[in-house]
């Protein structure tokens, strides 16, 4: 870990301004992913701006009837919030399926969106990786790619976004609210927040330098039944091979996002529209452009079957 200086910001705009003007500066939230990567010098900030005092730890109602989640609300607090459990079950479920109790107590809402990939080649600084060192090549292509992307990948990168929470936010059409160094704010639709790797896999999302996430806005509740099915090699404390976030209405219509398959939460409008026709119809549309490797080809039938499981649960009579 490179040596760094540290300060605590006193306001979101001030934090954004410091990071924007200080070379090598980064925001520090919970730190559960950043410190992990700093120890391996995959991240090498020279200045950390700790945002923990910014009072962005509240969940409030919005005028539109939705919820605004402060950027610093911990995963535990968010998934335990009564309104979230009642009206946004998919979000509570997704968070509870991620990481461990200890990590959820520390990890923040904004930080969770900014999690970097768990591609093992990204994590090994000896290996070429376009995401870690642009232009060095992608070791995962032709290598061990069982966990990696099947869709939306490029010849430069087949990493996945590893998080669970964002899958739920994607089906909820959440908006990521930010403040920039000049004090201006914007709301980025979650659909546009994470990027596909393309030719610039080192860039995970659309945030500008110094732009700070202040909160997440959830539209008013969707109703319907909420599901988050996460499939992994062990029963807990593991990243998804595939996950399915879904909200399904009584008439069989709904929304679905797939995790563990792409560089961003994978939701396709045509696939949503096919929900009443069943899992196969959804998967055909969601994975029409899929380019799996031999190692991870199974993710497509797995995603299909996991969605079938969700649809079956939605149809089952409520106990």
């Amino acid at each position: 870990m490179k040596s760094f200086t540290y300060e605590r910001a006193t306001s979101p705009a001030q934090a954004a301004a410091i990071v924007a003007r200080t070379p090598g500066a980064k925001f520090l939230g919970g730190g559960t992913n950043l410190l992990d990567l700093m120890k391996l010098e995959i991240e090498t900030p020279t200045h950390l701006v700790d945002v923990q005092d910014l009072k962005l730890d509240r969940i409030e109602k919005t005028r539109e009837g939705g919820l605004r989640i402060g950027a610093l609300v911990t995963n535990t607090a968010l998934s335990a919030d009564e309104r979230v459990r009642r009206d946004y079950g998919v979000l509570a479920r997704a968070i509870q399926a991620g990481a461990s109790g200890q990590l959820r107590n520390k990890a923040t809402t904004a930080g969770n969106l900014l999690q970097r990939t768990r591609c093992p080649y990204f994590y090994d600084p000896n290996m070429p990786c376009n995401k870690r060192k642009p232009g060095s090549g992608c070791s995962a292509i032709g290598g061990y790619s069982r966990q990696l992307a099947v869709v939306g990948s490029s010849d430069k990168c087949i990493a996945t976004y590893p998080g669970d929470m964002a899958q739920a936010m994607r089906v909820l059409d959440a908006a990521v609210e930010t403040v920039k160094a000049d004090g201006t704010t914007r709301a980025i639709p979650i659909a546009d927040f994470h990027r596909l790797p393309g030719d610039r896999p080192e860039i995970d999302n659309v945030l500008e330098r110094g732009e700070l996430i202040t909160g997440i806005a959830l539209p008013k509740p969707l109703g319907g039944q909420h599901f988050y099915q996460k499939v992994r090699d062990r029963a807990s404390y593991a990243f998804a091979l595939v996950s399915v976030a879904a909200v399904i209405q009584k008439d069989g219509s709904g929304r679905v996002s797939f995790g563990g398959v792409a560089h961003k939460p994978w939701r396709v409008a045509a696939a949503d529209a096919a929900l009443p026709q069943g899992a196969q119809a959804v998967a055909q549309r969601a994975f029409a452009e899929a380019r799996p490797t031999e190692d991870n080809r199974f993710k497509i039938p797995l995603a299909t079957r996991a969605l079938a499981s969700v649809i079956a649960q939605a149809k089952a009579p409520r106990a």
Partner: protein
Amino acid sequence: MKFDQPAGTNPIDQLKVVGRPTSRIDGPLKTTGTAPYAYERHDVVPNQAYGYIVGAAVAKGRIRRMDTSAAKAAPGVVTVVTTLDFPKPLPLGMQNIAHLFGGADVAHYHQAIAVVVADTFEQARAAAALIRTDYDRVPGRFDLAREAPNAPLEGGSSGEGSAAPAIDRIGDFAKAFAAAPVKVDRTYTTPDESHMMMEPFATIASWDGDKVTLWTSNQMIAWSKGSLAKILSIPPENVRLDSPYIGGGFGGKLFVRADAVCAALAARAARRPVKIAMQRPLMANNSTHRPATIQHVRLGATKDGRLTAIAHSSTSGNLPEGKPETAVSQTKLFYAAPNRETYMKLAVLDLPEGNAMRAPGEAPGLMVLEMAMDELAEALDMDPVELRAINDTQVDPEKPGTPFSERHYVECLRTGAGRFGWSRRNPKPAQVREGRWLIGMGMAGGFRGNILTKSAARIRLERNGRLTVETDMTDIGTGTYTILAQTAAEMMGVPLSQVDVKLGDSDFPKSAGSGGQWGANNATAGLYAACMKLREAVAQQLGFNSADVAFADGKVSAGGRSAALAEAARAGPLTAEDGFDPTDMGERWQQATFAAHFVEVAVDSFTGETRIRRMLAACDAGRILNPKAARSQVIGAMTMGVGAALMEELAVDTRFGFFVNHDLASYEVPVHADIPHQEVIFLDFPDDKSSPMKAKGVGELGLCGVGAAIANAIYNATGVRVRDYPITLDKHLEKLPQVA
């Protein structure tokens, strides 16, 4: 004490302390965080500096140049030691295949090439990243499947006693197999696995003149003392190791590793004590692993299920001079059959060093053999328990003149089946459903040798009447502290609370050490011998002439006279030292331990995920010295078996030549959510040919066969047979019932 005939009745048979479920005497220390592990010995020597190891970035090649100037100039750096400081590799320690340090050649990925010493951990770690290394990378052989067809035959040993000639033939296998009416002929694979003990390799090294002390984490103190002397080219008497608490080993800490060597070299260069804990991401490639195997099993049987022909071969890989994974060893001994053939092949691979991991040989061997037996039972339309029972043998099938000392495998099968409710299993696969879940039951047999080896101990009666036990034996979570205290308490007739046990110091008498599930029986037998000597000394001191002196309730009694034990030490502590010498008892009888494992699984019919619902093991392992700790050994091994069956696999990148998933997030081991309540039954068959303790090992037995029992349960649930471990969901997913 020479042990050259079956043990008669002796003081251990009283079973007042030994044989009783006993909470660990080190429990209050371990549960309060006050048991000191290697890296935590702030008290032993002042001015400790921090070392950080740099691993090679290539799998095979030669270091052309290392630039340490930036590292040396970095804040807090005391010194940098690189492998190029040594013109050639340092000598190999015992059982090491790859050199731990020295010279320009790189034999495997993450081999230690430098150690940076600084005032703080943060400074050492940061400086380590500043070293620039240029390599000449050379091609290597990294793909077992590709090398296997040309791999030569190889006799060998796991390093734990099971030597084997190149091809072992009894009768005429080919003819018998051809003639057998019912056959199984299948190929199976098991992956590379990593020990992943919770405590990293860790050492504090400190030099005093030409003598070095290492506070370290090591299973085999005497071996490692000798190895370090050899590696450092100093006399053994100048090396002291101290390893009282070990945060798990599973075979990974049997031999000296890079942490100890680097700490010693760095401390010498820095002229101050140096502490090193190997960073987790380096461990899987820097150290040893259980090698992958490709196994071929052919079983021929009569229509009523009697085995007439057994053949088992295994191909594994290792670095040059390495040994094979002895996956066929149990097959030589487990089942009767007149015609047999076993052999191993060994490919040269330039991956990290393959070596012992818990139940080397038997763990992967039984995962395969016992799956093949399940396939045979199905082909015979026979109950898998019955198939195993009718093929039991009471003698070594290869040497019918050598009987097993005790063998109660059939009782394990019957008792386990009864307690588990095996009769409720539907033998036809893919028949039982509970909602979304496909339910299955499976079973498998377990077998692991009982190795006898020398082990010594010292016991001292203190002035205050307390007893102090000293031996270089280690407790790697096995419960050694407690069983040694139980042994001393039983032998000397005092309560357990009167005994202090000191372990893991190379200045203490040389013990069996912890490996090959031989620790408990041999180490307690060594202490038994020392206690016999102390009893004599006490009797003499107290003026008892009779040969029939009783030690009970803190008193020594004979001929109507009685004295307090403490009386004997009134003039000063009484010390006795002796050891257990098993002579040829291990050869006159075939000695082994047996188990039957039963498992119920549920497989998600949608996603193919497997959940273990119930697990039970019935074990025949001689006298169980402490049923509480022994049960823990078995459930822990069963848990490791769940990992082997369902998730554990070091993924090999055959281009770069390394294990890709080299941390605890990407190499998945079982977590709480994977493990249900586990049941263990110990059969009560003391083995008087094993030692005066009449005990045998159990820590590896618990792992042997578990993986196959799970695999067989999955097959029973799904009707899909997966022959390549681990059985991850992708391997059967698309053969499960249609759901969408």
